[in-house]
């Protein structure tokens, strides 16, 4: 399940990050950030398995992609900030 959402500012870093994660062999999706994870409005998220989070943050850092927030989707709906990375 892609329950970990790494948010980035806009579509270009999202594309760059998505490319880097796929090249690193990490399964992920790129999507518009849900409202709760984009408090400034309109952003993008890279969604992946929680277990891949630490590796993904390292890959994104190496690719020069700035992650704005790390969020975890809750089973009951909604998101909470994750303590991972950043």
């Amino acid at each position: 399940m892609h329950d970990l959402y790494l948010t980035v500012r806009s579509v270009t870093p999202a594309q760059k990050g998505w490319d880097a994660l796929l090249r690193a062999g990490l399964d992920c999706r790129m999507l518009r950030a849900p409202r709760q994870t984009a408090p400034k409005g309109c952003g993008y998220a890279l969604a992946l398995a929680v277990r891949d989070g630490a590796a993904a943050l390292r890959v994104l850092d190496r690719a020069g992609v700035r992650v704005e927030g790390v969020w975890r989707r809750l089973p009951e709906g909604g998101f909470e900030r994750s303590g991972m990375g950043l």
Partner: protein
Amino acid sequence: MIYLDNAATTLQKPPGVRQAVLRAMERCANPGRGGHAAARLAEETVYRTRCLAAEYFGLEPEQICFTANATEGLNAALGSLAGTGDRVVISGLEHNAVTRCLTGLGARIVPVAAPLFSREAWLEAFDRALIPGTKAAACLHVSNVFGALLPVEEIGALCAARGIPFVVDASQSAGLLPVRPAAWQAAFVAMPGHKGLLGPQGTGLLLCRQQPRPLRFGGTGSRSVEQTMPEELPDRMEAGTLNVPGIAGLGAGLAWLRSRDPAALLAGERALLARAAEGLERLGARCYRGPGQTGVLSFRLPGLDCEEAAEAYGRRGIALRAGLHCAPLAHRTAGTLPEGTIRLSVSPMTRQPELERFLRVTGALLKKR
């Protein structure tokens, strides 16, 4: 038609360009403005072109900003660096895209002059002009009128040593000569997408190695609550809906260039120009030529007005451009004001038999005179 006006735009494109434009028109929605498949395809299309350009010019994808043309890029670059009363040193070959922009900004323009094809003389002229108090410098890589190649890497080194931001207009060189913003230590490099890069009209690139000031303000599909433009590139410079079909076509142009040997393309174009110049001179034309000349040849025919000659060529199915080529400063520097010149410019699609036909027509025009 024999098309020899490639310095204005390359009319003949690789077939993939048209296909990419059509595909984008049929399938791509607005990138960065939705999560549906058509928006995602547009995002992917734009990003692929951005990556191709980044690889081609040795930069990161976010340093590639899409513009409508080179003029827009130059306006953004110069507007980021200079304002009223600021001293800006430029080559005496600049296009109106630079000189009118600086005039509009109220900058104090300092053009430097040198013999057209003397790299050393251009370098010395810039060396003398880049004095303390200079706010910025701008120089084209290749003259759109004369095809003269300027030593931008060396001029960039002079600017860097003196802390002066440097802008390069690569309108006539991109796609033909190596364009290396980092090696040139350039703050910005601007170029059209529709000339040597073989994309459609309405496309251009601004390569940013410094933070620019936005030229347009508006929606970027990011951080919409904030009422200032994003700091991040490329969003900072790409307010409003992008020309996705054009960008798709530009990507196809870049992909075509990447599949070719750049040295062979350059050698082929230089051989065509040399053949044209030799033939013209044999017929009595005055050609402006010299070492390093790239893509463009200016000439005059004895006893014929340049504009009338271009009209006569046009009636015989040959497309050339005459006059001042939007670069009166270049003609002043070269001593070809007020009449200007006739300009012949080639592309990778130009073929030798087309030049032979052009030379036969030239001979006939001169006989008729």
